[in-house]
């Protein structure tokens, strides 16, 4: 048995709920509100028939409209590709070195290339393209194989030192640990350090210069400025792919390095290769 209470002023029954002496009146709801509730229930039933809703043992009911988020995404991507078809066609047939002269196409290529880069390249080169030890920084002005748009496109398409693409850029540095004496290695390391670091042992570096001329200059050049035709890095500049300290350099000379990049030709569309190349070219080091 509940005890009914009535509000004195209005004569309306209260719910008995009391907040700081204020009681809630139990006024009837408007009837249209009830209709609205029924309407929402009917709507909900129709909705669960039309759209995926009821959980089954595996999956859920599909709904008579056949609506699905996956299909929507596919349709949106197709619509997007469709709306950009003209730009894509232009990009695929564009003369890449003169691309910046067409601001709209250039902007599209760089925006598209940024997306391609973030999903395919950032795993090694970093989301900001700053690289990491062994993975080149693409923001600076130093290139192993060349930084003009044609060379970047070639590198993206065929990759480096991979076994998948016969046209991949290839070179291999010998592991000098089997060729040189430890003292010779110490000397050549000191010589390489002396090229970019003012603090070095002059006598040792002088001895190293001879070792360098005999063993390294074939690829790296007599002045150690590198050779892009075989991906030999410039050893006289401030940029080091693996590190410019003596210990790292000794490791590099002794065991060599063999950085690999996969070919993206088989994996990316032509427009994507061109776009990502344009993007990399626009990051600050493009030649």
């Amino acid at each position, binding site marked *: 048995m509940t005890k009914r209470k009535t509000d004195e002023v209005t004569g309306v029954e209260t719910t008995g709920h009391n907040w700081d002496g204020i009681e809630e009146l139990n*006024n009837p709801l408007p009837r249209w509100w009830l209709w609205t509730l029924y309407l929402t229930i009917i709507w909900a039933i129709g909705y669960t028939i039309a759209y995926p809703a009821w959980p089954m043992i595996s999956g859920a009911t599909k709904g008579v409209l056949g609506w699905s988020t996956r299909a929507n995404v596919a349709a949106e991507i197709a619509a997007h590709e469709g709306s950009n078809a003209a730009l894509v066609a232009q990009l695929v047939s564009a003369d890449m070195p003169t691309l910046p002269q067409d601001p709209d196409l250039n902007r599209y290529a760089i925006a598209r290339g940024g997306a391609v880069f973030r999903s395919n390249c950032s795993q090694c080169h970093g989301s*900001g393209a700053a690289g990491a030890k062994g993975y080149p920084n693409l923001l600076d002005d130093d290139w192993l194989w060349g930084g003009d748009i044609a060379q970047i496109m070639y590198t993206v398409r065929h990759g480096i030192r991979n076994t998948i693409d016969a046209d991949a850029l290839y070179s291999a540095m010998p592991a000098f640990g089997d060729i040189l004496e430890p003292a010779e290695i110490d000397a050549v390391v000191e010589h390489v350090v002396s090229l970019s670091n003012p603090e070095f042992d002059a006598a040792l570096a002088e001895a190293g210069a001879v070792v360098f001329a005999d063993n390294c200059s074939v690829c790296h050049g007599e002045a150690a400025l590198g050779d892009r035709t075989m991906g030999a890095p410039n050893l006289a500049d401030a940029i080091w792919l693996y590190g410019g300290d003596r210990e790292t350099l000794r490791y590099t000379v002794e065991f060599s390095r063999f950085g690999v990049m996969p070919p993206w030709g088989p994996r990316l569309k032509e427009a994507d290769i061109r776009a990502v190349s344009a993007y990399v070219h626009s990051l600050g080091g493009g030649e």
Partner: protein
Amino acid sequence: MTSQPDQPLYAARTPIFPRRVNGFFRRFKWWIMAVTLGIYYLTPWLRWDRGASLPDQAVLIDLANRRFYFLWIEIWPHEFYFVAGLLIMAGLGLFLFTSALGRVWCGYTCPQTVWTDLFLLVERWIEGDRNARLRLHKANWSLHKWRLRVTKWIVWLLIAVATGGAWVFYFTDAPTLLRDLFTLDANPAAYITIAILTATTFIFGGFLREQVCIYMCPWPRIQAAMMDPDTITVAYRDWRGEPRGKGNVKNRKAAEAERAAIEAQAAGAGAAFYPGTPYPGQKTPPAPPLDLATSDEKGDCIDCMACVNVCPMGIDIRNGQQMECITCALCIDACDDVMARIGKPRGLIDYLALSDEADERSGAAPKPLWRHVMRPRTILYTAMWLLVGVGLLYALFIRSEIELTVSPVRNPTFVVLSDGDVRNIYDVRLRNKSGDDKVFQMNLSSEEILRISLEGQDTLNVTVPADTTVLQRVYVTARAGDTAATGDTTDLRLWVEDLSAQVRASKATTFNGRDAQ
């Protein structure tokens, strides 16, 4: 245990048939309706010449291009704070008016009130005044009733379509859209919007009416917190009207004589503010027996129900302040009309401050209007409103035609170049808000030696087309060994100058050296 019957769980709406009324406030409301509806329907059709590349609609919310045009003002998405500021001003303005004058928003300018008023006008025009509509409501569904009802619904529907139709014109070029709507070339979103707004206007204005205010709108419940005894609101002078009774009508001569005496007395006192101030010296006796012979002891209210019959909310203002009351003031007009007929001063129902009750009961003059309105609360609301308003105006007038935003690229924090130089990268957005293409020259200033260069440009000039933003990658480089390159961070300022107009803009940012973390 209880003798009370169960409360019904649901109640049907009680139909309301407001009677036609004439008077000062009714006329005022017709004007307000004409002005507000006029603004709503006509604004999209105003033209404003902005040059060839920009739309010529005076008020246009261009969602597709993310621009808002208001006469000579053009708002870009990053300036949305203007809209936010206007909304804050609207809110503060509502607080101000509510605390000073009660629910004037509800009573005069709320779209629900205005359109319901318009729908009632149509209803009265087709089906007749209150009594005719009451009869029609109770009548069986004859051909006559069908004819009137269907005519009314058709007119309502036309108004509703025009209402929904006017809304979409704010979002695209109105003349083009009007043509496209008729040739069925318009965007589906336009038709859907019109359909939804037509439905809501038709249902809210035609059928739900006061239910919207009572059950759907939160504002009536919030406003009580903003009103106090000094708020001017529509109220019944029960100290003057009670005890009410049909017998309160005196013979006209006696009434007029009494009125003349009162007016003479009031003129002598000189302080009566309300045109119909209460009887000086009259006190409400504690429920005296109704005696026609001693009519002096009765109040002015003759219980004619005029105030109830004209009320669009279906309430009795004589019961005091109610949440349902939207203060439309039509009961004032209705009661004034009756008071004039029976030879009593107007204002038995009137705009008044409840704090004046004690003064009026004792026969003293009520406080003047300005003393009710000028209160710390209203002054504070006005000050806040002005503060926001002046701030927005200031922001509006210092806006430059050219702008830049600088996002330093912090991934990585800096780049070392082959010669040991240290480079920082900045994504700079250059904004040209004018109608002409411009050439912007970039530059930088700093206490350290820094060089600036632009991606893809041989010079420091960037061409920014009219009404667009261009993203330019900017490189700032410090020579190897310089303080900026080897140190922590260096302050710098990036400048952009419109060479043709001698306008400059700048943004401060920082340069990271090798020591920066």
